[in-house]
């Protein structure tokens, strides 16, 4: 079974996670830039983070046979801090990089005017750079946030079919599907969605344009949730081709819009004792 996790924050994860993901079938992932838990106070802090997503993290992933790509953006939460807003001016020089397969995560957190500005500006940047966009839908006031997001996408230069609306659930999937965008579901241990509810959504809505991710980060989360959804799909009567479509072909098709996916990472060598890279330091 081959799995593509289209949304996972590996910066916050350990090499044990990479190893377990590979063993579970994960061969490719996309790491969206996001809020690190501790608010940043300057653009330079973002730039070091972006550099890590284009340097060290793909290198770490490759040690475990996993192709790593990223999406870059000023995230919705920090778009509200005027000290961080200049990140928008520097994004063009990052969006041309080979490993960048979308603009993201963008979208709404608290639905403020600053978030309106950042979302519209970054949808335009995506259109300008021939990139799709990964759009986070808010955790609070979710349905009205989704509807406002869809309106902003519709008014933007970016085709809704180049947009992945993420963190959907039973209450938002219908509106999202009608917008023509791709549909992302984050499977969490306690919140967002779980694997059995995900199977229910797939039964009700089908597998077209559906992507499933672990969105694993520094919070309580599980980087193997993609595999658990695959297993739950098979147990519920879906075929292997359905699993491959949701967990591989759909994310490849969406991020492939960028023309920048490179999925041919060699299998890892036997992990030998004494290699300091694999320990992450000397």
């Amino acid at each position, binding site marked *: 079974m081959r799995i593509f996790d289209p949304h996972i924050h590996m910066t916050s994860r350990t090499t044990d996670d990479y190893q377990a993901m590979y063993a579970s079938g994960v061969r490719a992932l996309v790491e969206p830039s996001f809020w690190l838990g501790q608010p940043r106070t300057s653009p330079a802090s973002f730039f070091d983070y972006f550099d890590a997503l284009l340097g*060290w993290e793909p290198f770490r992933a490759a040690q475990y046979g996993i192709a790593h790509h990223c999406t870059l953006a000023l995230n919705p939460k920090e778009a509200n801090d005027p000290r961080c807003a200049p990140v928008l001016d520097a994004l063009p020089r990052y969006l041309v990089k080979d490993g960048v397969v979308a603009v993201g995560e963008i979208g709404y957190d608290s639905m403020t005017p600053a978030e309106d500005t950042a979302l519209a500006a970054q949808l335009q940047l995506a259109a300008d750079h021939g990139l799709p966009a990964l759009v986070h839908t808010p955790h609070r006031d979710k349905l009205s946030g989704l509807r406002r997001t869809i309106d902003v996408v519709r008014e933007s230069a970016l085709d809704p079919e180049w947009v992945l609306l993420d963190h959907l659930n039973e209450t938002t999937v219908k509106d999202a599907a009608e917008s023509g965008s791709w549909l992302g579901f984050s499977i969490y241990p306690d919140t967002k969605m779980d694997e059995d509810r995900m199977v229910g959504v797939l039964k009700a809505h089908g597998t077209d344009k559906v992507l499933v991710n672990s969105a694993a980060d520094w919070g309580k989360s599980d980087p193997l949730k993609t595999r658990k959804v695959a297993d739950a799909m098979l147990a519920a009567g879906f075929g292997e081709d359905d699993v491959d479509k949701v967990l591989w072909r759909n994310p490849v098709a969406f991020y492939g819009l960028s023309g920048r996916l490179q999925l041919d990472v060699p299998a890892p060598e036997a992990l030998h004792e004494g290699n300091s*890279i694999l320990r992450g330091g000397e």
Partner: protein
Amino acid sequence: MSSNPSPIHEDLAPGLDPAARAWLDAALAEAADAGSSGESDNVAAAPAAVASWELRFAAAGRHCGQEHADSVRVLLLEQARAGLATLTRLYHQGTAAERRAVLLALPHRVTGPGALPLIEDALRTNDTRLVAAAVGPYAAAHLDSHGWRHAILKCLFTGVPVAAVDDLERRAHGDAELARMLADFAAERTAAGRPVPADLHHVHHLTGEES
């Protein structure tokens, strides 16, 4: 542009598909234009508009394939006659793959020791792609003894084959301090019950200071 093919270009072109070759030809023409107008040694941290050849430099992997990206990027740097200021800026603003290309280009583009901070930066990383690119002819020519010895140890620590180290035989020969460091490292590994890298014995032998 094609009137000035370099050996790298002649080796590279047959491996590229027609679309990639056309992309490369256009990219080299843009780089050559920048090189001949003297605009490529751009000191500004954020030029008003990014030069088109620099966008090509960033995009080389997806257009020519990862296996050709190093060669294509080095070729672009040569055609653009990128100097120390441009190389330094491209390194600091680059992905790991772009930084690697800058490191590989240094021996052809920079004569003095001015680019040593880039080598030192790469040697501080644990990214073996960067470490391997940092120990080429530029480091052999300019890195001081202390820095060079630590670069050798870094290769042994991180599993970069010392075959990547340029001019290893000459610089290692007679280096008693390097020999001591290698012996200490071997003793530390042995005390821990861990294997001593085969490359360590090879370098130790090259020092001629085995005791």
